[in-house]
Structures are given as C-alpha cells and as structure tokens.
C-alpha cells in the first residue's frame, strides 16, 4: 500500500500534488510539502542510514536540521549533493536520493558485515588499536571505511551569489519568539531581516497540535495573521529557506539563502540557486529555538526510536503516524502532549515510561482517561527488534538510573518517542563570543553573558513557555530587553524534575546506549575515555569524536557531558561545554566560492602590453597575481625548447622582456635616505644622484623578505624597485614603518608600479638596439655605467632608464608611462630585427639568473634565510647604523656554524638534472626519513653551458666546495658536486660591457 503510514487527513501537505521519488533505488510517492524524511516515513521506510562506525541500521531521529542519522546524497552525477539531512530536503518530483556510508543500500549494507568488531573501534582507536605492525598498514582500509558521502568530481553546474548588506535588526528564527521580535522591531521603523531555515515561518507552531491557541485564537490563525502583518511592513524583509550559518565579530552574520525555485530550474536559467549573505547588523535577536535531547538507554538507536518532538512534527505537520503501538520515554511533562496526540490520531496502545518517580496527579489522570498507560519511575531496559522496533522492556529505576531487572515489564511498540528535555540552540550565541552557563535545574546550557549586541529570546534562552517566548520576543524587538538574554526562564513544561538520569545502569551487562548518533559514540565509549584520562570536554570531544563533524553536537552534546559528569562524579557545569564552530549546518563549498571560479578565480593583473604578447604567441601563466608570458613558443615548440632558444638569444644577441610588474615605489623627502637606510641592509645615504645599488630587505627576525635595486633620482628622491611578487607587500611594509614606527621622518612614498611600465633590453647588442630608438641619453659605458639610472627621452617618450642586470648581460630597464609600453615594445622589436632581437618569457629569465647565481627571493631563500646564507653577510657586517633585522643577525641561531648556505651543485650524471626540492642527505647510505642537510632550490639545464646546473641551500655549504653530496627526491637518488653558485661569467665582464 502506498504511503501506508500517512493519515487520511491533516498536515501541511498538498494531497492533490503527488510526487514520485526514489531512495536507494526504490520508487516511492509523497506529497507537495513533504520533506524526504517525512515521505520516507509515510512509506514505511524505517532504515534510512547506517551508523558511521559500526554500521548498525538507523532510522530517523529528528524532523529538523538536528537529524544525525538520515544523511543522504541527492541528485546524480554532476548535480549530486551529498551529506544532506533527509529532514532538510524538500521533496520534489523526480528526486533521487541515496543513503551514504552504505552499500548497496541502507537496508542491506555489506559494510555491516565487513565492518570491524566494535571492540576494535573503541574510543581513540586510531591511537591504540593499530599499533602493530604500524598505522600505515591499516590506514588505507580505515580511510576507505571512513567518511560519509562522496563528493562528485564533476564540475559544479550550479551558480552562486554573494550579497553584502546591513540591517538594524536581524532576527534568527521564525518561531513565536522570532515573529514577535520582528513585529515589535518592525513597528519601531527599524530595518529588520527575519530569517528561518525552514521553507515556512512558524517554528514549533508548524508541528503544534491543532488545539494550541495564542491570544485566544488558534495558533495557525495567529501565525497567518502575524506573517500578514510582517509582509505589510516595508522595512521588514522575510527570508525563508535561509540558514544563519555563522556569527562573527562586529555583528557580522553569514546567511545561506536558498532560491524558491528548484535547483534544476535555476540551473536552466543560469540563475544563482544559493546566495551567501554577509549581513552586518546593528543588533541581532537570536530566536533559534531549542533541540530536544534524546534519552540514553540500551539500544536507543534502533530504527523507530525518535525524538518525541519529531514524532509530533511528523504527526501534525506531515500527517504521518509511524506506528500504532507507541511508547513515549520521558523525563518531563512536555512529552505527555505527544502521547495524547498519538492517541488522538489512532495510536494504540500508547505507554509512557517516565524516569521520574513522581508525576503530577492531574497529568496522570488526564493520560489515564485517554487510555495511556503511565509507568513512572521507570527506565527503558531494552528495545527489541533489530531492523525496526517491536517492543520495549521497561524496568523501575532509582534516581541514579540503576534499574531493577526483576520487575521489568514489556510494552508493545512500533515507534518510540523520547524526550530528555530541551537544549537551547546556543550555537550562534556561542559563535558570537557569548558565554554560556549551565542551569542544573533545567539541565541545559543557556546564554549568560553577551559579548556583542545580541539578545537571545524564546526557547534559545531557555524560555520554554509559549507566553514567555512571545513576551520575550516582543520585548527584545522593542528594544526593552536587557542586552544579553531575555527574561529569566519561566517554569518550563520540559524541565526534568529532579536529577537528570544520564544513562541506564545495571549490575548486568546492557546493550549499547547511544549518546552521539551521528558519530556513533556510546555511553560506554565515554566511560572508557574518562577512565583513560580524557576527562575534559575538549579532550573527550577529540578522543571520541562526539560533537564533531556536521552534527556539531546538536543532539548529543549535553548528554555526552552528562555521562562524563556521571562517570567522573562531577557536575556538568564543572566540566563546561566545548566550542561551537560555524557553520551551524554544512554549507556547500560552491556558495562559499561564489563567483570565484574558473576565469574569475583570482583577480589576475594584465600587462599594459598584453595584446602585444598575445600577438607574439606568448604562453601565459600566473606569476604573483600577474598574467605574464612564460615563453613565446613558436609553432611546435615546447616550453623547454622555447626557453632555451630565448636564453641563448640573450647570451648571443639581444632579447626584449616585459618587466612591468617589477615593484616601483617612489620615496621623497629630506629624510628619504635615512628612511631607506633603515629599510635596506645597505647604506642608501651614500648613493649619489644617478647611482643605483642592489639591496636586501629583512624582516625583524633577520630573514630576507625582498631584494631589488634602489635608485637615487635626486638627493631627496629615490625609486625603490622590488620583486614583482613583492610589490604590494613591500609597499605596505614601507607604509607601516613610515606611519607607525617612524612618523617623525619627513618622507612620503608613492607606489608607481602600474603607472610606469618596464621593458628590459638585454644582451650583447642591447646598446645598439637602444641607440636606434633615438635618445638624448648618452648610452656609452663611461657615461652610463652598470648600476646607474638616467632620465631622458627615448623614442620621443620621457623615460627613466636603469642599467641593471638580472641576466648577467648588458641590460637596460626602460621605465616609461604605462600607456606607452605597447608602442615601445613594437618599436624595439622593429629596430632590433636585424640584431636578432626576440621577446623573452620569464622562464628563460629565471634560467639566466640561475646561471649567474642570482637568488630569486622565495625560491632560493625562505623566511629564515639571512644575508650571510646567500653570501651577502659582508653588506650587513660593514654597515654602520641600524636597519630592520640587524639585531637578529647576531643571535646564536643566525650565526650558527652549520647554517644552510647558498651553493651551486653539478649533477655527476649530466643526463639527470637535479630535481628542484630534492633533499640533501647527511650521508651516502642515509635512508629517509632522515633529517636533511640541505635542498635544491633552483635547477635548470643550461643551454649555454650545455649541462644541468642547480642552486641549493646546503649545511656549511661554503666550506664544502668540491665535495660530493647525495640527494633524495621522491624515491630517486642523485649525486652532485658542490661548487660556486656563479656558473657563468664569474668576473661579471659581460654585464659591465
């Protein structure tokens, strides 16, 4: 029979709109308004998932986002989305869902047979079960068994949006308290945003009994009217299907809004399906409600055992009665209403098992008249039925949960509703930095002290009484509530009377009692962890995994702490609570990435002569946020061969290189030289106008952060040239020191990196080519020597020309306004044609500088490399006056005799270049893992020298010239000889030519 468990009437479903869907390959029917969970329940599907660890069959526990068991993958192939909770999936026609962590299905799971015995998978099993012969042996198997759904590797066809906004009041939660708050704040004219994760507003009212009333009218009528009033307010924005996922500093709350249209429809239109809101709020009202706690008793994870509130929700909102015979296990009055509702909808027989010895007489007689049997002072001793609940054995218990087996009674049950009280949903409040306090009367953690402008109302503030929720919401919305939380908790129907029973105890062995359903953690696991010393909440969490992953302890947190308290004879308040982290519920990576994918992944800068490079056939790559030519490959040419050709042209004729991204910062003022002399390890004060000096910049720890040249343009005016990747970082570095540390220096800086484009002409014929452009600058070596700068006109353009070299050849860097770069590029190629000028990409430049032993900061250095490591210690040693990092250079660490120093390496096998990153071994026969004594930082095959060359940082490198070193890289071994890092033209005659 279709939808056998669906009631003939009632519920917020549209029975005229039948929907077909599949779950684990079987086809079912549901109605518009169903969730996947309610439709499965209506069809009698009891097993919806498997335990994460032991693969025990699991049924639905909840009806909301707190569901820990029914984790599903929805969709196929590229559109498949995994690790969704069946309770959050709106049913639609053609929906395809699969359980996760099961094969072939949740009903028949081979994993349950293959899974390792529970005794091998106890708490902390990673650390203690797989000790012999070694974790590496077991790791592949454990990894295969671990995890839930598998994410698709196909490209995500959905699109996502981001929206930044502000509001006066954000109300999180559309239940009675939230609606009241929004109404009151809206009436004050404040700009209000009200969000709820559900597709409908109403919160608990949606699953409430039809008899419930508010303000003398049926609750549903009140809900409709209130929503109508809110929709009429132009200053109130209602966002259904919107989850508040995180709460950050400065009252920034992130929301994920789901479009009203279906995902496939949005896909078809190219419209975003999910939108990430970054909402900055003047104040926040959290009315996120509360989550019912399970009770911990033997076999409480059997399919058919669910939260009493979930039972009520399926009954009232979705018109599903999961079973005739029902048992309600509780420690509070609230669940009695559920028992009555079960009877009213045809449930029979219905039994209440109440852990409290004393039950109010009025309640007892009311239930008795409804035909409900009440067993007070009882605990559940056993649940019978492996794949679905058949019956329950209950036994009297004392206040500590110790049962009397001899007086046990058996009750028929197809479904069990359990209620261990309610835990306020404090996740967002906790994320905001708010402090929680444990309330031993209610056995809850509730908001105590707020750090930001946030007010918590309703059940989230442990106000479980409907009147109090409405009043608290209205007061908070009206701004009259205290800044932290609403009114003090009122007498809650859901409060356990007397001491909470955290687990069932017996002198004889009991079946497993589950505390955390999602992470498959039992009370026994917690007992063992406590016995092994993991007695703090944070240690327990990591050792047992309780409260982790996508569940974030929604149903299990307080029970886990309660069991730990019980095992260690402490109070829950003394143990404290673990940290709640965003997101509240899993969020798609796609919505976090937004438009940052494919071509829009990162902002890539384009060169001013980009089109010229395209025409030249450049192969582009991302270098330090710039899209730059790595080479100009001719048809059929590989990167390696293009690089070789371009490098040889630089050595033999002339090349043209676009160096526009080089960082350029102008520094001016009477104290400019003093300022720069503190920034560089070099003394800039001694530079005369027209002179250029190579310099190093250090961090405070003495590590090299950048290198480049500084040019003196006038006695109070300099141009700092940084590495291309360091342009923005060094600009900020200079400003930080200027503004924060040395505000007394009269100096100003201005980054001109993109204002001035830079073209480098390098090679023996560079001067010839430059001269053909027509310039008023004397290019002769005497008038314009190496390491100097001249300002003048070239090709009719005002230019600042540097004679510096990173290739080891005669080289000029032409700095001209960026708008002239493309024209100048074309002119240089034209006039240099008969000289054999070719455009050169970055890869050839890197090869040329490696031949010269010039370091590339970041490749040949790291954050700990000091000047002496690269052979420039003499600059700092001879320097007078202070500079950033100076003191660190004299620390024992910086002066250790065994520091790694820059050397050249020659592979002893010329056919095998040394891999970049290869580790130097301390001895020939050393077998990894072993502490390396160096590494290869750059490696190329030199077309000029016709052999492989490499730069490396090597322990005591400069003392080891001529020695052989053994290297290891990804399973391969190499042998090389240590030599000077300068492979080419060590005298520097070419660059001074």
């Amino acid at each position, binding site marked *: 029979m279709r939808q056998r468990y669906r009631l003939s009437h009632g519920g917020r479903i549209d029975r005229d709109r039948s929907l077909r869907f599949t779950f684990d390959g079987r086809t079912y029917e549901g109605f518009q308004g169903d969730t996947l969970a309610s439709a499965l329940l209506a069809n009698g599907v009891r097993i919806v998932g498997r335990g994460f660890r032991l693969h025990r069959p699991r049924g639905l526990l909840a009806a909301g986002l707190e569901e820990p068991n029914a984790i599903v993958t929805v969709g196929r192939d590229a559109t498949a989305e995994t690790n969704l909770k069946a309770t959050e999936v709106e049913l639609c026609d053609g929906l395809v869902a699969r359980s996760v962590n099961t094969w072939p299905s949740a009903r028949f799971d081979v994993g349950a047979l293959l899974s390792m015995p529970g005794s091998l998978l106890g708490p902390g099993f990673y650390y203690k079960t797989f000790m012999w012969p070694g974790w590496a042996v077991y790791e592949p198997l454990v990894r295969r068994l671990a995890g839930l759904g598998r994410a698709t590797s196909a490209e995500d066809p959905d699109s996502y949006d981001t929206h930044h906004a502000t509001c006066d009041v954000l109300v999180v939660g559309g239940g009675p308290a939230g609606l009241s708050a929004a109404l009151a704040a809206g009436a004050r004219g404040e700009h209000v945003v009200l969000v709820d994760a559900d597709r409908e507003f109403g919160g608990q009212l949606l699953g409430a009994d039809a008899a419930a009333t508010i303000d003398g009218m049926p609750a549903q009528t009140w809900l409709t009217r209130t929503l109508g009033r809110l929709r009429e307010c132009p200053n109130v924005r209602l966002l259904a299907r919107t989850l508040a996922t995180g709460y950050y500093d400065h009252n920034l709350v992130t929301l994920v809004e789901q479009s009203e249209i279906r995902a496939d429809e949005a896909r078809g239109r190219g419209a975003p399906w999910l939108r990430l809101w970054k909402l900055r709020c003047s104040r926040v009202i959290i009315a996120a409600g509360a989550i019912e706690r399970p009770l911990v008793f033997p076999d409480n994870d059997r399919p058919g055992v669910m939260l009493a509130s979930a039972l009520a929700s399926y009954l009232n909102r979705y018109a599903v009665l999961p079973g005739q015979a029902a048992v309600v296990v509780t420690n509070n009055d609230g669940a009695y209403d559920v028992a009555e509702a079960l009877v009213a909808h045809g449930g029979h027989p219905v039994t209440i098992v109440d852990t409290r010895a004393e039950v109010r007489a009025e309640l007892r007689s009311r239930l008795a008249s409804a035909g409900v049997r009440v067993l007070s002072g009882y605990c559940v001793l056993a649940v019978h039925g492996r794949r679905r609940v058949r019956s329950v054995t209950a036994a009297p218990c004392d206040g500590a949960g110790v049962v009397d087996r001899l007086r046990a009674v058996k009750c028929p049950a197809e479904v069990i509703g359990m209620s261990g009280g309610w835990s306020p949903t404090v996740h967002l409040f906790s994320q905001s930095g708010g402090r929680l306090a444990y309330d031993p009367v209610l056995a809850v953690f509730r908001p105590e002290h707020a750090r930001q402008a946030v007010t918590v109302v309703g059940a989230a503030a442990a106000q479980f009484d409907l009147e109090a929720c409405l009043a608290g919401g209205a007061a908070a919305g009206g701004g009259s509530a205290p800044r932290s939380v609403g009114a003090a908790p009122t007498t809650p129907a859901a409060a356990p009377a007397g001491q909470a029973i955290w687990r069932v105890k017996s002198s004889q062995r009991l079946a497993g009692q589950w505390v955390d359903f999602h992470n498959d953690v039992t009370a026994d696991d917690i007992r063992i962890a406590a016995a092994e010393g993991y007695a703090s909440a944070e240690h327990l969490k990591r050792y047992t995994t309780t409260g982790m992953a996508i569940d974030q302890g929604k149903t299990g947190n307080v029970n886990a702490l309660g069991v730990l308290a019980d095992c260690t004879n402490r109070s829950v308040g003394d143990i404290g609570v673990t940290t709640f982290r965003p997101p509240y519920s899993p969020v798609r990576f796609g919505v976090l990435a937004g438009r940052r994918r494919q071509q829009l992944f990162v*902002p890539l800068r384009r060169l001013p002569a980009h089109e010229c490079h395209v025409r030249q056939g450049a192969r582009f790559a991302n270098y330090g946020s710039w899209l730059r030519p790595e080479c100009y490959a001719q048809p059929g040419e590989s990167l390696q061969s293009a690089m070789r050709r371009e490098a040889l042209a630089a050595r033999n004729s002339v090349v043209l290189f676009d160096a526009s991204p080089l960082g350029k910062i102008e520094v001016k003022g009477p104290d400019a030289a003093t300022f720069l002399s503190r920034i560089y390890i070099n003394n800039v004060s001694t530079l005369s106008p027209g002179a250029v000096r190579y310099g190093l910049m250090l961090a405070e720890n003495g590590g090299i952060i950048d290198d480049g040249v500084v040019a003196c343009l006038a006695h109070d005016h300099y141009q700092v040239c940084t590495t291309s990747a360091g342009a923005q970082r060094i600009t900020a570095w200079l400003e930080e020191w200027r503004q924060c540390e040395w*505000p007394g220096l009269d100096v100003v800086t201005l980054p001109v990196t993109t204002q001035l484009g830079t073209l480098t002409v390098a090679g023996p014929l560079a001067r010839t080519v430059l001269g053909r452009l027509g310039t008023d600058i004397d290019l002769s070596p005497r008038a314009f020597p190496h390491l100097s700068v001249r300002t003048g006109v070239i090709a009719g353009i005002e230019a600042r020309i540097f004679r510096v070299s990173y290739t080891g050849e005669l080289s000029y860097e032409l700095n001209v306004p960026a708008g002239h770069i493309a024209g100048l590029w074309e002119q240089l190629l034209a006039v240099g044609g008969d000289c054999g000028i070719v455009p050169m990409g970055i890869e050839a430049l890197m090869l040329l500088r490696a031949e010269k032993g010039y370091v590339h900061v970041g490749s040949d250095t790291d954050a700990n490399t000091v000047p002496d490591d690269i052979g420039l210690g003499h600059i700092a040693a001879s320097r007078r006056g202070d500079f950033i990092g100076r003191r660190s250079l004299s620390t024992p660490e910086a002066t250790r005799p065994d520091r790694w120093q820059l050397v050249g390496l020659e592979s002893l096998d010329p056919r095998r270049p040394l891999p970049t990153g290869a580790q130097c071994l301390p001895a020939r026969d050393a077998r990894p893992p072993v502490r390396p004594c160096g590494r290869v930082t750059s490696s190329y095959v030199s077309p000029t020298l016709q052999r492989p060359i490499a730069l490396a940082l090597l322990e005591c490198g400069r003392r080891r010239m001529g020695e052989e070193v053994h290297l290891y890289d990804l399973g391969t071994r190499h042998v090389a000889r240590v030599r000077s890092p300068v492979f080419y033209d060590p005298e520097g005659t070419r660059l001074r030519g």
Partner: protein
Amino acid sequence: MASRTGQPATWPGESSNTLLEGAKLRLRELPSLGRTIVRLGTSAERYRVELASVAGVPLPDSPGKVPEHLPVALWRSPLDWLILTEPGQRPDLAARLREVLGNATGLVADVGDTVSGIELSGEAASALLAKGCALDTSGWPEHGGFCVPAACARVPVLVHRLGPGRFWLHVDRSLAHYLQAWLGNAATEFYDSSSR
C-alpha cells in the same frame, strides 16, 4: 545634478564603450579622464590650499561627500587624493602641481594611463555593487556625490557615487579587465542577454 553654471551637468563620455545594457542596468567603460594622484607628507600639508587652487577643487580631509561636477578630488588615504578632470582639459595639471610642491615632501603622478573607470547605472546598480562590495551605502546621503575607497570582487577600487543609481568604480587598469568580467558575470540576473 547641476553644474557650476546651473545647467544640467554633462558628464563626459556618454558615448563611451558600453559593456552591457539592460532595462535595470547599464555598465560602461569610462573614457580617459584626466587623472592625477597627489600624495603629501605631513610637512607638506601647508601646500594643500595652493594645490587645491591649482587643481580647481578642494582636497577633502576624509572620504565622503564630493562635488557633483568635474574636476573632483577623491580621498584615497590621509593626504592622498585622485584628482579627476575633464578629458584633455588639464594636460599640464601634474606638472603644475609638482611646481607648487617644489622640494616639499610630496609626490605627484599622472595616472591617466593607469587608472580606469567603470560606470554602473540603473535601478540594479546598487544591488550589483552589493554582490562584490561590503560597503554600507545605507548611510550615504540620497543625493550628491560620495566617494570611499573599498574593494569590489577583491579588487581595490574607489567607489564614487555620482547620484542615485549611478556609480563610478575607479580601478587600476591592470585589474580593470578582471573587474569588468566579474561585474558582467554578476550582472546576469539584471539583464536579458537578448537586449544587448
């Protein structure tokens, strides 16, 4: 908006390169306005009045309100402004500002080649901006010019509101291509591609 003569202001480049046009939104690339950056050290602050006089526009103390007409000086950071002038009207501005400064601790750069502008206009302009920019525009005066430095799509920009539903984004030219592509992608829901 009114010009200094009381006539409706004619903003330059009405016929410049339109990137995207729909009923709710228009995106266009601004023409080559005159653009000059002035940055002063604290000791050169005394030159500010004279610099403003040469530029023909006050140099504001803080981000916020700006004149509705060109020339306009946009605050970038303390003692740091971008001066916008009509295309081709003040080719010598950078040189004249340098003259004023002489040896004082201040730098002037002609960034006409380097800074690019994108205009967003139409009823969806604010919504499009909110997709990539965290600025809170709710406190801005309803009318008049307003400008603040910010980031849009992680690209540093000066957000320059000319009037209701009309924004200029001043961006480094090296990043303009990315920002245009990003805005075009984000604007999909505001226009019908067939109407382009």
